[in-house]
């Protein structure tokens, strides 16, 4: 794997304490992000993909707690445990967020403040994190608006969010995220609320910006089409666990985990001959009482006894391709058996 890593997440575990009990939202997840790469984070609702990102950024809801794990960002340990107290942790995270780490959310209307002009919202992160004067910050804001393709920025910067269309609002959010030239952009379903033609514009913009700024991007999405056209590597999450990770080609052409395979046979590639869709039966596990073994065991057609009891180890299929499935162990034993016999 890449020797220099921008972000390293080790054994991250996040729980939510609710009235119904403890929700084990993210369980023992480890991965990393290299500088300049686009990593896709794929999973269904409730698979823990967004929660793991919020945990990294220190943005968990009040009842959420990082129970274990380490987060290294640009060489610095930013796990809560690495700080002497809550206050110093929060201060460091506030300095990082909006500067070196930025987030793009799904719904541009709830992210932007409806009663402030675009100018106020664009220059705020610049003033907070740099020593620029107000005039210099405004010049930077105009430059950002041009960079994300908003026509006549001098006029538009004085307007309010409701005067912008959905696609234009998403461009403004991207401009805010880029304001301080972040090293890491986390985009949480950035195009789900947009139409296909606008989605194509925004994806193209994000791709180009990662190329020109050298920032790394983590794309959280459930759209396998978006992942295929954007991402260099893909993490597949299911039931709070990372079940498979690999390069885009490894995941799409040589999927190993039955969940990944199931997910791929649920989508129709319109370019190809129509084939029957093979849905995954059942629904995702209840994370109030997650299965002891593999999270996918109840929907997996090839499940064995061991799958119920123990979580499989990751199998190294290539230096970049990891998959957690007992079938690999079984196959290996069968191969070994043949050789011996």
């Amino acid at each position, binding site marked *: 794997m890449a020797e220099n890593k921008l972000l390293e997440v080790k054994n991250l575990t996040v729980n939510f304490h609710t009235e119904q009990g403890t929700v084990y939202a993210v369980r023992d997840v480890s991965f990393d992000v290299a500088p300049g790469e686009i990593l896709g984070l794929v999973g269904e609702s409730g698979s823990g993909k967004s929660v793991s990102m919020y945990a990294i950024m220190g943005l968990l809801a009040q009842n959420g707690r990082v129970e274990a794990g380490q987060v290294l960002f640009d060489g610095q340990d930013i796990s809560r445990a690495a700080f002497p107290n809550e206050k110093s942790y929060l201060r460091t995270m506030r300095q990082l967020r909006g500067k070196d780490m930025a987030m793009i959310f799904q719904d541009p209307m709830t992210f932007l403040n409806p009663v402030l002009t675009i100018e106020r919202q664009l220059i705020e992160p610049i003033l907070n994190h740099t020593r620029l004067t107000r005039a210099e910050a405004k010049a930077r804001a105009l430059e950002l608006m041009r960079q994300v393709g908003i026509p006549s920025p001098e006029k538009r910067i004085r307007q309010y969010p409701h005067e912008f269309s959905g696609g234009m609002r998403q461009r403004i959010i991207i401009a805010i995220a880029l304001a301080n030239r972040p090293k890491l952009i986390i985009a949480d379903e950035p195009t789900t609320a947009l*139409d*296909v033609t606008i989605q194509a514009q925004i994806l193209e913009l994000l791709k180009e910006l990662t190329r020109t700024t050298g920032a790394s991007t983590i794309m959280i999405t459930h759209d396998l*089409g978006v992942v*295929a056209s954007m991402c260099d590597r893909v993490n597949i999450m299911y039931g709070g666990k990372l079940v498979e990770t690999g390069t885009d080609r490894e995941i*799409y052409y040589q999927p190993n985990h039955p969940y990944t395979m199931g997910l791929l046979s*649920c989508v*129709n590639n319109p370019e190809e001959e129509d084939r029957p869709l093979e849905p995954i039966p059942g629904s995702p596990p209840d994370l109030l009482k997650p299965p002891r073994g593999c999270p996918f065991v109840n929907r997996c057609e090839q499940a064995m006894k061991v799958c119920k009891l123990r979580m499989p180890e990751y199998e190294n299929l290539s230096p970049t391709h990891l998959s957690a499935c007992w079938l690999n162990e079984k196959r290996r034993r069968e191969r070994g058996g043949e050789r011996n016999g």
Partner: protein
Amino acid sequence: MADRPYISIQHLKTYFDVTRSLFEKRQIVKAVDDVSLDIWPGETLGLVGESGCGKSSLGRTIVMINKPTAGRILVEGEDVTALRGEALKRFRRDVQMIFQDPYASLNPRMTVGEIIREPMDIHSISEPDARDARVVELLRIVGLKPDHIRRYPHEFSGGQRQRISIARTLALNPRFIICDEPISALDVSIQAQIINLLKNVQREMGIAYLFIAHDIGMVKHISDRIGVMYLGHLVELGSSDDVYFKPLHPYTRALLSAIPIPDPVAGKARRRTMLQGELPTPLNPPPGCPFRQRCPQATARCGETMPELREIQGHWVACHNIER
């Protein structure tokens, strides 16, 4: 195939008056503007387009939730736009609708059994005593269990709720169902379950679908024919393979090239026809082709007259610049 379409929509217009005050100039949104199409018994017609193109308004007008401003809707030869009272109720028995949001379309205070039974009670279908047995049968058809009958909608996931919606729709043995984005609120693995369920039900009961969605990959999968709408107009109509592989209208071409393909090599190599700008407002649109401001091939003629939908070898398109 039958000798006449089940539904024939002729020059249908649905306009909404959105004038806010008496003193303001009249503001008209032309949500559906002169759309004609036929839907044959047992077929699936997919309808695609971006938000605001009028695809949902068209669906809602066909079931007469919205009143058409002009035009005719012929169901087996009979114009239903003039129907009132009992006759309208009778028509709605045969034509049903499945909505996008399975959280909003089920009454949270009714049990699943009551939800599925209600349409039969309203339309007095079969003997009252036989209705509960029918509910159990419908639950089985849509892949739910008989003991779900006493549960409430909040106890179900999105995919299961959509199954409940489908069971309710099927309770009346409809001939035609309008599916308005039935899968867009669901997770990928659940979407495929619902699509397969809809296909099975169609095969067994011979129901025709108008399948409205923006996911063109899925629309192509389920549809026999596809219609493309832009700003209230039907701009292209043809068999699903013709529209997908040989699109004629410049808008269809741009729309199709914007779809992200679930294949990393082809997806990244894809050349996109980027559309500049966004969908213009349907408020008082100027004359001519609605797409001309974003169209890479627009000519002076496009600004003058609205192109008619013309047939080119069984494939219909509304564009001045397509040669016969």
